[in-house]
C-alpha cells in the first residue's frame, strides 16, 4: 500500500471575497492514495493546514456522489476535471501521477461572483428557475400516478433534460459565459411534458428575460457546454428553447408579465455579497 502513495503540487486560487484580488498559492500534497477522490485529497490537505494553524482551502461540496450539483471548480482548465461527463467529486486521484502540478480555479463568469477561494455564488441560476421553472399543481394530497398519460419516449426525453443538476459548468466552459444549456434544459424538461403546458409561453419568455438581465452571455453555438456537462445534456436543449421562444414570441396572443417579485431591482445580483 505504502509504495502506491504519491505526491503532487496543487496550485490553488485563493481569494478572500468578491472584492479582493485573488492569487495562486502552491501546496505540496504528500501521501496521496490513488483511491482517494479529488475532494478527499483536499480534505486531507485542509486538515493538515488547520493543524498547522493556516487557513484551509474553501470549496463547496455536498453529496459527493455526483448528483447534487454543489461541487464544481476548474481542474487544469477543465470544469469538473479531466474525466468526461462527471462531477469533480467523482474525479479520483488515480487520474494523476507523482510530481504532477495541478491547477485548480473557481468557475469564472460575470454572473458568478466569487464568495471565497473556489466557492462561487451561483444564485443567478436559482433566479432563472424562479422566473418560470415550475408547474402549477393543486395543493393537498398527492395526485394519483398516471392520471395524465405521458408516453415513454416523451418521459425519457424530459428526464434527459431534467437530469441537469445546475452545477454551472456550462457557464464556466462557455466562451461567452452564457447559461443557455442550463436554461434550455430547464425549459425543455417542462416543455416536453403535458404538465408543463399551462405556463409554456410565459415560461420561456420570462426565463430568457431574467437570464439576460443577470448578465449571462449569448450563445454562439460552440458546444463547449455540451462537452463538459457532467449530466451529458445535449445542445438539443438550446434548440428546443430557441424553438419555444420563436413560437411563444410570434404565435402567443397573451402578453406575459413578470411576477411582482421579479421587478428589475430584485433581479440584479445583490451588491453586498
Amino acid at each position, binding site marked *: 500500500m505504502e509504495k502506491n502513495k504519491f505526491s503532487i503540487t496543487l*496550485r490553488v*486560487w485563493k481569494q478572500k471575497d468578491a472584492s479582493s484580488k485573488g492569487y*495562486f498559492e502552491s501546496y505540496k500534497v504528500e501521501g496521496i492514495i490513488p483511491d482517494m477522490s479529488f475532494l478527499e485529497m483536499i480534505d486531507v490537505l485542509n486538515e493538515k493546514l488547520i493543524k498547522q494553524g493556516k487557513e484551509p482551502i474553501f470549496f463547496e461540496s455536498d453529496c459527493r456522489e455526483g448528483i447534487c450539483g454543489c461541487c464544481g471548480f*476548474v481542474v*487544469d*482548465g*477543465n470544469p469538473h476535471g479531466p474525466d468526461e461527463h462527471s462531477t469533480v467529486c467523482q474525479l479520483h486521484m488515480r487520474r494523476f501521477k507523482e510530481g504532477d502540478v495541478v*491547477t485548480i*480555479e473557481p468557475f*469564472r*463568469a*460575470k454572473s458568478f461572483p466569487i464568495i471565497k477561494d473556489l466557492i462561487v455564488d451561483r444564485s443567478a441560476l436559482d433566479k432563472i428557475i424562479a422566473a418560470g421553472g415550475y408547474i402549477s399543481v393543486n395543493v393537498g394530497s398527492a395526485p394519483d400516478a398516471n392520471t395524465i398519460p405521458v408516453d415513454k419516449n416523451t418521459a425519457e426525453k424530459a428526464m434527459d433534460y431534467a437530469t441537469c443538476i445546475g452545477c454551472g459548468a456550462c457557464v*464556466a*466552459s462557455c*466562451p*461567452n*459565459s*452564457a447559461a443557455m444549456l442550463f436554461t434550455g434544459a430547464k425549459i425543455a424538461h417542462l416543455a416536453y411534458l403535458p404538465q408543463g403546458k399551462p405556463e409554456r409561453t410565459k415560461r420561456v*419568455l420570462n426565463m*430568457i*428575460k431574467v*437570464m*439576460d438581465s443577470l*448578465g*449571462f*452571455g*449569448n*450563445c*454562439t*453555438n*460552440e*458546444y*463547449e*457546454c*455540451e*462537452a*463538459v456537462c457532467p449530466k451529458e445534456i445535449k*445542445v*438539443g436543449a*438550446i*434548440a*428546443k*428553447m*430557441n*424553438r*419555444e*421562444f*420563436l413560437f411563444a*414570441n*410570434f404565435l402567443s396572443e397573451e*402578453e406575459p408579465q413578470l411576477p411582482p417579485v421579479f421587478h428589475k431591482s430584485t433581479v440584479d445580483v445583490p451588491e453586498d455579497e
Partner: protein
Amino acid sequence: MNYLFLFRMIKTSVGRKQLMAVTGLLIASFLFIHLAGNLLLFKGEDWYNGWSELLIANPATIYIEIGLLFLFIIHITMAVWVRTEDLINASYRKYDMSRWHGGRTIGSATMLYTAIIILVYLVFHIIHFRFADKSIGVYQMVVSAFRSPLFVSIYIIGSVALALHLSHGFQSALETLGINHIKYNVYIKIAGYLVAVCMVFFAVISLYFYFGLDLREIADASNIVEMTIE
C-alpha cells in the same frame, strides 16, 4: 396593433441571434445565386455579359439590392451587439489554464475575425465591381481584374474567410432557429461543410483566370486555324 413582439425579438439574447440567423441564411442563399451567375464566366464572354444584362434589365434588381443591404445591416448590427456583450463577459473569465473541450471548431472560434475580413473584402468587392466603369464589358472587367496577383490574393482570402464563416454559420443558424434533431444533426453538419466548400469556388474562378486557363482554349483554337491555313 401590438408590435411588442418585434421589440422583444431585439431585446432578448435569443431573439437577436434569431434575427442574425435568418438574415445570415438569406445572405447565404443569395451567395448561391451569385455563384451560379459567376460560373457562366467559364462559358465565355457572351454568356456572362448576357447574364449581366439580364440582371441590369430586370426592374426588380435594384429592390433586391436594397433588400440585401438591409439584410447586411441587420446581420452586422445584431452581430456587433451580441459580440460586444460576449467580449465584456469574456473579460470576466480569465482562466490561468484555459482549454477547449472539443466543441469548438476553427470556424466557430474565428467567427469574429472572418466576419471582419469578409466585411473589408465586401466593401472592396462592391467598390471595385459594382460601381466600376463597365465600358469594356463586364466579362473583360472581371477577367482583367483576375489577371492581377494582388486581386486574386484578395479574392482568395475573402472566399476562404467566407467558407470558414459559413462552415460554422450554417449549422449555427439552424440551431439558433431550433433546428436540431438527433436524426438530422449529422446531415446538417455535412450540409454546412458543403456550403463552405461551395464558397471556395469563388476563389477557384479567380484562379482559373489568373493562370490563364481560359486563354488556353483560344490558343488551341488559333493553332487549329493556323494549321488549317497551312
